[in-house]
């Protein structure tokens, strides 16, 4: 697999050079070199101790590229994807099919701000892309390097100073076809000073074949700006996702990221914040519902670089059947980051004997005037709470689902759109085998 990927790069290098500037090409080459040297991470690597990529890299994936001709099988119509859209909120919409931008399913804009695709930004805004691309990711691990080398499409957002993006940006990555597919998606989001945007992101496979999306996001948040980003990871049972999201925050900026992982086969999230301007505030919420043989691995890292920043992290997980969870939350308080406030919480429910969670907080603190706390719990549903609900006439299965929703509530209550919250609750209900429409 590793050799095929690097061969793919070298075979197409001249073509890659045509879609982006020379600077980017040299970065691609550096990245493929690192990938070739390091290869896929193994469980001997501390960051991958609990999560083996062995099975994920086994299938004989097809690698979609801008250089291959458009395949009939990739044809997707509105009716095929309608149910994956958040329809009742007016949104910008950026849709990709096997990494290729689908203009007829999308609604982009260049009027007050740019909401479009990286594929077009390479050409249209080479300077801005050069200034920002690979800035946050150049020292990352081999999966990120692989993406840097091979990525050609993804979301591009650039919001100028003091502008608010009026409606949410819905970005959808679909995978389809009659073979296993391995996609690299790459997004670049730049919010200038005093601006704000909201992104709802979803990856979904439309095929029964194995799919793997290796996504990388770089997000630059200027001073006094804010972003709210909701990641819906509710993919089909054959779909896998590895995603590295890197967020840099300047002075007094605010970021809220919700990661809702309720579907898919294998999910690995790396969510990293650099709080580089004083007063920056990062909020992370995670909700994981695992069943069957799902694996969901959350690695988060917050670098408190500047003073007076705060980070708040709440991750909840419910694991059933043979599912497996990993939570690794790292908080790194640098020497100058005095008056840091960092809070981390990871709570888990284990519903079956074969399900498991490995949870590990990691705090490294090099400043002396900081407030940090962390806590993790692993438990079962509270029997007394179940009795209370059942004594009100609520059947066991419904009672369990209600308690799980209550447990999960913290992780979704800050999502702004009531309709999205309701949709999520219903989705969670369906996952738990219960009709939640009457409850919420």
């Amino acid at each position: 697999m590793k050799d095929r990927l690097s061969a793919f790069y070298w075979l197409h290098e001249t073509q890659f050079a045509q879609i982006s500037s020379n600077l980017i090409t040299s970065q691609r080459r550096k990245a493929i070199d690192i990938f070739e040297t390091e290869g896929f991470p193994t469980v001997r690597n501390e960051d991958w101790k609990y999560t083996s990529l062995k099975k994920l890299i086994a299938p004989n994936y097809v690698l979609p590229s801008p250089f291959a001709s458009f395949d009939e099988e990739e044809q997707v119509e509105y009716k095929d994807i309608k149910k994956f859209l958040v329809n009742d909120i007016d949104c910008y919409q950026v849709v990709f099919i096997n990494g290729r931008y689908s203009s007829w399913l999308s609604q982009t804009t260049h009027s007050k701000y740019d909401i479009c695709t990286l594929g077009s930004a390479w050409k249209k805004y080479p300077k801005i892309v050069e200034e920002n691309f690979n800035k946050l990711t150049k020292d990352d691990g081999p999966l990120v390097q692989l993406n840097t080398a091979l990525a050609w499409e993804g979301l591009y957002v650039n919001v100028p100073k003091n502008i608010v993006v009026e409606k949410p940006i819905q970005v959808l990555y679909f995978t389809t076809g009659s073979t296993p597919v391995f996609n690299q998606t790459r997004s670049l989001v730049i919010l200038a000073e005093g601006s704000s945007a909201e992104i709802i992101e979803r990856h979904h496979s439309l095929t029964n074949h194995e799919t793997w999306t290796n996504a990388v996001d770089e997000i630059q948040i200027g001073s006094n700006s804010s972003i709210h980003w909701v990641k819906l990871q509710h993919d089909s049972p054959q779909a896998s996702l590895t995603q590295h999201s890197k967020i840099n925050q300047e002075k007094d900026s605010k970021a809220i990221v919700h990661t809702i992982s309720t579907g898919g086969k294998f999910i690995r999230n790396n969510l990293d914040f650099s709080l580089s301007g004083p007063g920056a505030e990062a909020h992370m919420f995670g909700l994981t519902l695992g069943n069957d043989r799902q694996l969901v691995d959350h690695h988060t890292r917050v670098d408190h670089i500047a003073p007076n920043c705060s980070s708040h992290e709440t991750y909840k997980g419910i694991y059933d059947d043979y599912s497996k969870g990993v939570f690794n939350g790292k908080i790194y308080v640098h020497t100058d980051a005095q008056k840091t406030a960092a809070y981390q919480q990871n709570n888990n429910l284990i519903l079956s004997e074969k399900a498991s969670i490995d949870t590990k907080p990691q705090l490294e603190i090099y400043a002396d005037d900081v407030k940090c706390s962390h806590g993790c719990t692993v438990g079962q549903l509270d029997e007394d709470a179940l009795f209370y609900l059942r004594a009100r006439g609520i059947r066991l299965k419904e009672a369990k689902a209600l308690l799980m929703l209550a447990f999960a509530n913290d992780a979704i209550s800050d999502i702004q759109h009531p309709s999205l919250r309701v949709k999520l609750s219903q989705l969670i209900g369906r996952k738990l085998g219960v009709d939640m429409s009457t409850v919420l």
Partner: protein
Amino acid sequence: MLEIVNLHASIDDNVILNGINLKVNLGEVHAIMGPNGSGKSTLSNVIAGHDGYDIISGDILFDGESVLDFPPEKRAHLGLFLSFQYPIEIPGVTVSNFIKTALNEIRNARGEEPLAASPMLKMMRDKMKVLEMDKGFLSRSLNEGFSGGEKKRNEIFQMAMLEPKIAILDETDSGLDIDALRIVANGVNSLRSKENTFIIITHYQRLLDYIIPDFVHVLFNGRIVKSGGKELALELEKRGYDWIKKEQE
């Protein structure tokens, strides 16, 4: 309506109930009093079907039918309600949605159609008025951040909505100030009818100043050792439980 026959029950091999006999008919209000540790809460939990207890022997009958094998929800469907001493907090589920869910689960089990939204809301508003509850209550998360009094009032509100045939009030008076006590008692009194029955479990007599019982039973060491009319409660208030303990020794 409810009959408890020579009931013995234990938890973790500790026998708590030691041969309880009690018969409750429709239209009656029974008070069960007793010192701490006499088995009052165990009795209410066992009647409601908590599965943390082992039933050693004896029976619990609703309308002549044994319910020992029924899970708690089925007992609720038959018309049993337990007002909890310590109601559970359920963040993210509003009071109104919780009651709607419970009520429609019960209706569904009885083969009735779910109650539509507007009659449901009207019913809620009517009942809330009796309990002097604020409308904003409905949209709060169930019991989350409620004061002790609000929790108890919420229990009685649920009872009013679910219209049980047998309602057990477990230490409903604990943690209530005198005003809340009066409101809760008014709520209960407004629900009293020939079609239902109440079992009031309490340590103190003061709730019984407001809800006048037909019968008072004294529970001690897992058995009902004395039964009488409402004057028994007054006697207990005056003399405490020591004389009962002495009588038993």
